[in-house]
């Protein structure tokens, strides 16, 4: 059964037990992990949340090796966070390295922009990086385990209106359509001689901005087409369904997963409070 992430990058949760869980469990476990993040301000707490998210991904059988291809993006993000903390936020603490980048001498004094790396700054950076890491992993866990079948028929089993269940599924499906359209526009631009690879960062940014216009137009057209296709099948926001083609029931495993998720959140709230 293709999951949302599976259709995009081929990474899917492989654990049969996890995949058989109710959509409520599959949505709420990553949600509980994400909700723990605001309470994990210290590096140790952030590390604990990151480890919990790794453990959840491993338990669900999400192939973390699929993240390798995004390693460059993750490293860039880490470097950006460290630089931001060093260049723009002079966090008080023991100074490990200090250099003056700009010094302007004026009549009324000296204006200096200094790069100051402190131990506390590094701790904050580490905590921030770990929180981002945990956030990415919980998103991966969600997208690699939830299928559109889960959303439509799972939500239907929770007595959600049929139209609303289909809309929830379409929201996630929209991500797939957006990326697919993005590649279409990108290829069309490349066919006209645009070279994304050899362009500078600034030019690449400008090129991607240009791609937004046809992309938005495609999105509007696609939304319109999908809504017509659904309506022509009798599916509208207020549509109802009698029984549901697929049966979803909350089982003991779901209650266990939800309890674990809620406990994780409660533990991090308590830890954050005490710290």
């Amino acid at each position, binding site marked *: *059964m*293709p999951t949302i992430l599976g*259709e995009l990058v081929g990474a899917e949760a492989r654990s049969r037990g996890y995949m058989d869980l109710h959509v409520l469990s599959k949505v709420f476990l990553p949600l509980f992990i994400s909700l723990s993040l605001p309470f994990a301000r210290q590096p140790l707490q952030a590390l604990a949340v990151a480890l919990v998210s790794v453990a959840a991904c491993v338990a669900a059988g999400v192939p973390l090796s699929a993240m390798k291809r995004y390693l460059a993006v993750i490293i860039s993000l880490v470097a950006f966070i460290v630089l931001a903390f060093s260049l723009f936020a002079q966090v008080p603490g023991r100074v490990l390295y200090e250099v003056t980048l700009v010094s302007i001498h004026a009549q009324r004094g000296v204006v200096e922009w200094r790069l100051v790396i402190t131990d506390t700054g590094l701790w904050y950076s580490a905590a921030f990086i770990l929180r981002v890491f945990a956030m990415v992993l919980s998103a991966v866990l969600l997208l690699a385990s939830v*299928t*559109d*079948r889960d959303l*439509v028929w799972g939500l239907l089993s929770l007595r959600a209106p*049929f139209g609303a269940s*289909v809309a929830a*599924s*379409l929201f996630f*499906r929209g991500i797939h359509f957006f990326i697919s359209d993005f590649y279409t526009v990108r290829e069309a631009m490349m066919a006209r001689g645009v070279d994304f690879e050899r362009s500078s960062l600034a030019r690449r940014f400008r090129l991607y901005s240009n791609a937004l216009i046809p992309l938005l137009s495609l999105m509007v057209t*696609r939304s319109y*087409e*999908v*809504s*017509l*296709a*659904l*309506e*022509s*099948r*009798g*599916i*509208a926001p207020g*549509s*109802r*369904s*009698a*029984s*549901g*083609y*697929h*049966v979803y029931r909350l089982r003991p495993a779901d209650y266990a997963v939800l309890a674990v998720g809620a406990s994780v959140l409660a533990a991090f709230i308590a830890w954050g409070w005490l710290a």
Partner: protein
Amino acid sequence: MNVAVVEDLWWRYEGREDYALRGLSLEVRRGEVLAVMGHSGAGKTTLALAMTGIIPQRVPGEIRGHVEVLGLSTLRADVTEIARRVSIVFEDPEVQFVMSTVEDEIALALEPLRLSRDEMRRRVLWSLELVGLDRGFLNRSPLQLSGGEKQRVAIAAAVAREPELLILDEPTSDLDPVGKEEVVAALRRLRRELDMTVVLIEHEPEYVAEFADRVVVLREGRVAMEGGPGDGVLKG
């Protein structure tokens, strides 16, 4: 008895000066396969949308005249209400797919009909078989199928609902010769096994001659010719 009656239908899309349909009148009889032919821009797809109520209810524009399908005025009856009894298959099957497996794609179309689970299951398998696809396709992604297979899944989703009127809007036009032959084979089986009223919008005379009981040729938004496939209409 008529399944659909179109009387003096005029339609102009918003922002356009010309009318897409200009006083078009025709009727569709119960149990027949009516082929609607014509050049690009003759008004074939516009007519199909008018018969489902999408025009004028979801597409902005100016309308005059009257369209009645199965006793419902498509100008007034809700599109979803019409959709319970009328199925349409669009030219591009991909725009109709919203689920990630063939089985769910067909099942989703059945949900609003409020059928029992067993009946839905029966119809999913039956419709798939009808279009010549085996059970191995149930768990495949519709987007990863060939053009002909995609169109057959779209037809299966439409037929599974057992509509009183099935509208096929150029089901073979976007396909390569192999895909075209697959869809035509599915249509052959449909024709043989079902007593369904079908409006087949098609521009290839060879298929029309095989399937249609009656042919209507549109030109500039009105009926230019009408007759049986052997009456010389196709040559015209």
